[in-house]
Every structure is written in C-alpha cells, then in structure tokens.
C-alpha cells in the first residue's frame, strides 16, 4: 500500500495539467514515395511499384561499403522521413540508416528475407570503450545476386509492397524476366574462380559452386595470378573494374581461361552482368 501511495504521488506529479492548445498531427506527404538505398535494389523495386508511387534512390557512393564515411544530407534525410517505405539491402551495409530516426515499420530490409542464409565474410570479437566486449560480423552485401536467394527476396519484396498497397497490378509481368535470369543461373561450375572487386559476388559464385577472390580496385594482375595458383581453376571470371588484359598477360602460358564481365553504371547493369556470368558458366559445361 505504501509503495502504491508513493507511486501514486509520483504519477500525479505528471498527470495534473490541462491541455492548452489542441495539437495537430504532423503533415503527411501528398505523394507516396518509396526510398531505395541501393541502385541495384532500385532496379528490382522499380519494376514492382505502382505507377502512382514515386521512387527515390538515396545511396552512398559505394553502397557495399561498411565504412562509416557517408551520411545523407538533411534534404535527403527529410525525403527518407517522408517516405511511405524505405527499402534497403540490409546485411550491415546500410549502417548510416541506423543513425537516423527512421520508423521501424516503414523500414524494409530485403536481407531479412534470407537473414539466416547470408554469407559471412569475416567476423571478429574485441573490446574497447565503455560498451565492453563486442563482435563485428561482416556479411557479403546484396544477397539478391544469388538466384536462389534472389527469388526468395523477389517474393518477399512483392508481398511487402502489396501489403502496403504500393505494388503494381502487373507485378508478375515485371518479375517474370527477373526470375528467368535467376533461374538461368542454376548451374554448377566448381572449377571456376570469380575475382571481383565487390564482396557481393560471393553470392553468384557460391550459387554455382565457384571459389571467390575479392580484390581491391586496381589490384596488380600478379596478385590475381597468385589467387589463381592457389585455387587452380579452369577459368577465371573477372567482375568489375579489373585489368583483364593484364590478368591474361599474367596468366599467359597457363590453360586458364579468362572471362571479363563489365559492370555498367546503370541500375540494372548487374542483371546484364549476371546474364553474362550465366552464359560464361553455360559455355563451360
């Protein structure tokens, strides 16, 4: 009883005042907008959105980066705040978004569709600061690059957009070609080495059973040769901004086939790259 009385007094302190002016709700944006934080993802989302829904891409220069080097401007942040939905790749590559006050019910991470099936690139546990011991797990970003995961993500995206009334009626027509590309990647090629500047290529490589070497942009072709010597593949697929000529020269005399796949600037160029990858794997069958 004494505790209740004490509680009562403390509660009454905050309870005894009257409203002074009737408050008004924050103004809702007039047009529905979906903000996408990865250009690649925008290629998928854009095909599924209803015609009256606007899509904005707000992404750091390198959406795959885990570095803490980019934050949106206030203008971009307002766009994110006013968005009906924010679609992000997840898998830890969008730490900048975690620093904003985005409503959790408006934030959709596509990695949640495959959250128990992400590829761990590295993990580390250490201690510093007041928070004590903690772990860093780095996942490969962009899991939609794997056809198996990609199809799951497409289904999840479709359901999410439909649930919020943002999806186009011709959803299947938009998704059909994407599914075809993903299905065409269901091949196996264990004697392939994928060398890429992007950690996201862990996914298509894993899909076909190929080994992977992630290198930095402008890596000396000699290092690629070192990777090739270690993996002993029959073919090397170079993805991204790598010196294909130099790699061919470095591997001259060996029987290793070198295939170069360009990654364009366009949002959907990754689909072309995936198709080229599938074609290369098919050709090797």
């Amino acid at each position: 009883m004494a505790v209740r009385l004490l509680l009562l007094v403390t509660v009454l302190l905050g309870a005894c005042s009257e409203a002074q002016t009737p408050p008004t709700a924050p103004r809702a944006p007039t047009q529905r907008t979906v903000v996408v934080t990865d250009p690649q993802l925008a290629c998928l989302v854009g095909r599924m959105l209803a015609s009256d829904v606007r899509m904005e891409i707000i992404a750091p220069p390198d959406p795959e980066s885990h570095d803490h080097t980019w934050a949106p401007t206030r203008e971009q942040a307002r766009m994110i705040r006013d968005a009906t939905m924010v679609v992000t790749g997840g898998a830890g590559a969008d730490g900048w978004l975690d620093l904003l006050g985005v409503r959790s019910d408006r934030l959709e991470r596509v990695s949640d569709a495959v959250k128990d099936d992400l590829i761990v690139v590295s993990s580390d546990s250490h201690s510093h600061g007041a928070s004590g011991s903690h772990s860093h797990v780095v996942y490969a970003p962009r899991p939609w690059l794997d056809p198996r995961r990609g199809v799951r993500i497409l289904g999840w995206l479709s359901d999410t957009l439909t649930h919020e009334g943002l999806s186009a009626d011709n959803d299947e027509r938009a998704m059909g070609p994407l599914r075809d590309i993903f299905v065409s990647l269901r091949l196996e090629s264990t004697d392939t080495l994928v060398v890429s500047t992007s950690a996201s290529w862990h996914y298509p490589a894993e899909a076909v059973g190929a080994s992977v070497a992630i290198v930095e942009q402008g890596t000396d072709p000699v290092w690629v040769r070192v990777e090739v010597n270690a993996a002993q593949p029959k073919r090397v697929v170079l993805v991204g901004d790598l010196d294909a000529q130099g790699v061919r020269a470095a591997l001259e005399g060996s029987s290793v086939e070198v295939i170069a796949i360009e990654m364009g600037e366009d949002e959907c160029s990754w689909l072309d790259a995936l198709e080229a990858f599938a074609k290369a794997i098919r050709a090797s069958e």
Partner: protein
Amino acid sequence: MRGVLWLAWRALCARPLVSAILALCVGVSVALPLTSSSLLEKFDAALRARAESTPIVVGPDVSRFDLVFATLYFREAEMEPVPKSLADDASRDGLLVIPLRTHSTVRSKPLVGTDDGYYEHRLISAAQGELPFFLGDASVGASAARAMRVGVGDTIVTDPPDGLNLAASSPIELRIVGVLAPTGTPDDDAVFTTLPTAWLAEGVLHGHDDARSFEGEEDVIGRTDEYTALSGAVRTFRRIDEDNRASFHFHANPDELPLTALIVVGDTPKDETIALARLDALRGIRALRSGEVVDELLLTVLRIKSAFDTIALLFIVTTGALLVLIFWLTARLRAAETRTIRDIGAARWTPFLLFASEGGMILFAGGVLGVGLALLGVALAERLLIWL
C-alpha cells in the same frame, strides 16, 4: 430589515480580526473538500486519457506499475531493457509498435528516444523547428523548453549517467531542432530524440576518428590487416556535426539494442487482444493493458478520496459546532446590547435577526473565500506537487 443588515455589518466591522478569523475558518472548511475533489477529478481524467491513448504496454517482466508508469510518464524505474528485436516481433499483424528508450536525462528531464510513430500517435507536432531525425537532434517539450530556457538552435548536454562510474559514457551535446507544441501531458516536460541518439547518450553507440589513424600504445591494444582494436582510452566524440556524423557506429548486435518498453496499438480491440496474448507469452516479457493498471491505481485514489471526504466532513462539522458555540457565547457577552435594542423599542426578534445576519455574512464571506481558495489551490497544485 435593511437597518438590521446595516447594524450587523457595522458589528462585524467593529471586530475585524474576529470576523476575518471566523470567515477564514469557514473558507478553509469549504476549500479543502472542493480542492481535493477537483484535483482528484483532474488526476483521474488525465490518468485515464493517457492510459486510453496507450492501449498496450510491452516491456520486461517487472512490476506492472513500474512498467506502465515508466512508459506513460517516463518515470525512472529499476527495469532491465528489452531487446529491439522485440519491436520487430511485435510489429507483425499490422500493429503500430512504438519503441521507447528512456534511460538518460537532460538537466533532470527525461530524454525520450523514440520514432515518428510516437509523435503521430500522440498528435505531437513542433511549434517551432521540427521533430528530431538526425543523430544528435533533440526536440524539447513546451514546459521543458521554458524551464531550461532553450530554443531552436541551442544545445543541451545530457546528464552524466553515473557520477561514480568512471567507465560510463561521457555526456553528449544535443542540438535542439524543435520546440514541441504544448499538449498538457508529461510529453511537455520531456526532451525527445531519436532512438540512435538515446543509445548514443548511454554509450551503446559512439563515434571516434578512423581507427587506423590511432598509433599510440595507450589507444591501440591490437591490430590486424582488417581490424584495429582500440582501448577504452580513445576519446570519443561528444558533439555530433556534419564532419563526424558518419563516423558513429554501434557496438552491439542491432537486434539486442536496449529499449525501455513498447507501446502497441492495434486497429481493433480484437487485434490488441491477440497481440496482448501473443506478447505476454514471450519469455521474460510482460504485456499489459495500461488502462487496467491505471484503473487499479485509481481504486486506491478512490479510497484516499473517501478518507479525504470523511476528514472534510468531520472538519466541517467541527467548524460548524465551533461557530455555533462562538455565536452563542457572543450572544451571552452581548446581552446588554440585546437589552438596549429592546429598550429602544425594537421588535422582539430583532436581536436574533441581528446575530443571524452577522452569522450569514460570515458564512457568505467564508464561502466566497473558500471557493476562491479552492480555485487558487487547483491552479497552484501542479507547481506545489512538483515542488514536493
């Protein structure tokens, strides 16, 4: 009759101190029950309104009063946090789930970390500036802004978490981006911010220079090609600006970030009942209807009110009896005056009318004074209770 009233008035004026004391006694007897009754009605209405707008509260498995009043009134309570993943789990079935983190304070005002769902649900808007969204942003409630004498563009610093804990996180500087419109609720006396900023204030999130830039032994305790392990001696940023904003990062699993509680709102009572049952069944989690807890508390209020009413009744009866006694004794003391009135040819009832008029005037003055005191008491109650 007019002459009797004039005589009564003059008689009271002839003894101003006695008249004033008698009027005050009557006034206090009237004011006390009026004030307590009016205040309790206000408390009752305010508590119920707050509870009705907060249908379901979800948090750790602690005392239901602690949980509800920490959520509704941001009161400090010894409560373990619940993980952020609970918010994701609760938000199934189209429920509105509002996360709250109320661990830190700013100049003794609660620092409430939440998202835009809270403002939309409670119909809170910014009277000046905007609602917080960026890391380091804060919007101050109307009363808090007045009390702290701050406005948009000013900065405020969070209170040190624990004066004796040297390992605790340092206070951080928050930039005020908005002052909220008054709502007449505890929200007016709080400082609102985003969840990441609330976590920053308690040290779950921090920012520092690029780890690779540290060289000294006291800063670096280990280094590999990929990672640099920094020691606790590294100075973290206390102020968030455009240059360092991107460097802030979490040191916890995002799913395990701490929340004080969740407010869950369903479209229909059925949705809320289903959510309540589902969430309350989770291990270590308590979900309850805040209205039921407030009702339970208000039962105690009613008991207290009954006690107040009884005391007030006894007080009125005692005061009445004393007044009767005083007037009777006064009449005895003024027996000579009564005789004189009769001797000069006044009617037999004139002395009685005179004393009755004096009594009526005292009661009237006391009544007016009582109502005035009651109004003043209600108006001052908030400040008085806060001071208490």
